[in-house]
């Protein structure tokens, strides 16, 4: 039974930061070695716990950025008023230890047998769990037709930029970027929000029974998912992961 499979206890593990990679000026990927990591599915998240010298602790959740079987990685966007993200993106170095437990979640996951056509829609750092899905698709040799629509503020804010371009060129994944705030000179891509017009043009027709994953800030996820339902996507084929409140930590 599926239930039995998730009954194991999630204990805190002391993990070592093996590598830090700057993705954008505000975003950093941390690759961590977690002894006894039970493995994860593409789209799941994990918990991080930090402890100050006086015992004060802070915990947060982050999506796993790596595919199943790859070393565990998270990609963190620095929120200037945040408590944890400035530490993870500016202070933490390779060799440091943090506590981790997971993986957590089981609905916002994609497995090759879930099929598609796959429509992945990201707002900002909402790309992170979708990137795990894209890597998993590639890793398993899946040929599921896949389109990524990724909304970022500026070209510089695009996370995994080189990797996404490679996927676009070599792996049959349509990558559509839209830059909402500022475009580089000569930009001939999309410029607005992921709105009804864009989705009418780019979302797989509902008749193809597509499977959609939407990840982004609340307002983004609300608007995109409502539009997909309006285009005929059954609600159970639109899976959503939202983050932030209306600007929370």
């Amino acid at each position, binding site marked *: 039974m599926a239930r039995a499979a998730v009954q194991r206890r999630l204990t805190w593990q002391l993990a070592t930061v093996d590598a830090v990679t700057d993705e954008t000026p505000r975003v950093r990927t941390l690759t961590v070695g977690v002894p006894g990591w039970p493995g994860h599915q593409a789209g799941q998240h994990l918990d991080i716990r930090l402890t*100050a010298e006086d015992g004060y602790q*802070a915990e947060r*959740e982050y999506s796993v950025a790596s595919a199943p079987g790859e070393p565990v990685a998270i990609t963190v966007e620095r929120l200037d008023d945040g*408590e944890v993200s400035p530490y993870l993106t500016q202070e933490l170095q390779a060799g440091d230890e943090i*506590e981790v437990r997971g993986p957590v979640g089981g609905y916002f996951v994609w497995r090759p047998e879930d099929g598609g056509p796959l429509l992945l829609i990201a707002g900002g750092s909402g790309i992170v769990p979708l990137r795990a899905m894209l890597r998993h698709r590639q890793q398993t040799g899946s040929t599921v037709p896949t389109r990524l629509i990724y909304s970022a503020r500026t070209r510089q804010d695009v996370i995994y930029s080189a990797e996404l371009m490679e996927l676009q060129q070599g792996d049959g994944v349509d990558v559509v970027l839209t830059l909402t705030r500022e475009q580089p000179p000569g930009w001939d891509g999309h410029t607005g929000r992921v709105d009804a017009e864009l989705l009418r043009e780019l979302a797989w027709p509902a008749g193809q029974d597509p499977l959609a994953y939407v990840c982004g800030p609340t307002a983004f996820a609300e608007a995109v998912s409502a539009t997909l339902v309006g285009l005929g996507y059954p*609600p159970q084929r639109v*899976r959503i992961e939202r983050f932030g*409140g209306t600007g*929370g*930590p």
Partner: protein
Amino acid sequence: MSSVSRGFRGRRRDVGGEEGRVPPGQYVTQDFPVLSAGPTPHTPHDQWSFSVEGAITPRTWTWEEFRSLPSETVTADIHCVTRWSKLDTVWEGVSLDTLLGQADRGGMFVMAHCDGGYTTNLPAQDVLGGQAWVAFGYGGQPLPPEHGGPARLLVPHLYFWKSAKWVRRLLLLDHDMPGFWETYGYHNYGDPWREQRYSGD
């Protein structure tokens, strides 16, 4: 014993008035974050109804009938498993004591069913005795759809995923069954003060 995170100081919050009100691992937010697994349903009032069924005399209320039931204003602190807590939220809703009646429900369970297919399970004794409501108002306004409107469950003493959005039906059961998130590894009961986030906590 936790390992100290080199260089981490954390942000000590001004806990004035918050002391003893924020469960372990939580932080206080002024926002009202939205978390749900699927698109927000928008059920118009004239297509909305609320039912109780299972091991209870079945009963269905239309929106108008439901709104004519006695309601209460509830001020409560709420705690989301994703670690935000929001203090002094003000709701208006119908007590489950009103909806489920006064019969002894000892040893029984409630499965809440919602628009969009979401479910969550609770012991009946946790939703009776002035502990749970079907809330239709928030902050003096109608409950917005993204926060569960027209009406959601409000069970503030458990993690907030138990306060199911868009609730339409309560099924009384003589046995426990996991709901949606409970099947995906979240704790079956979800007491924030015991930090019961995940199965086994």
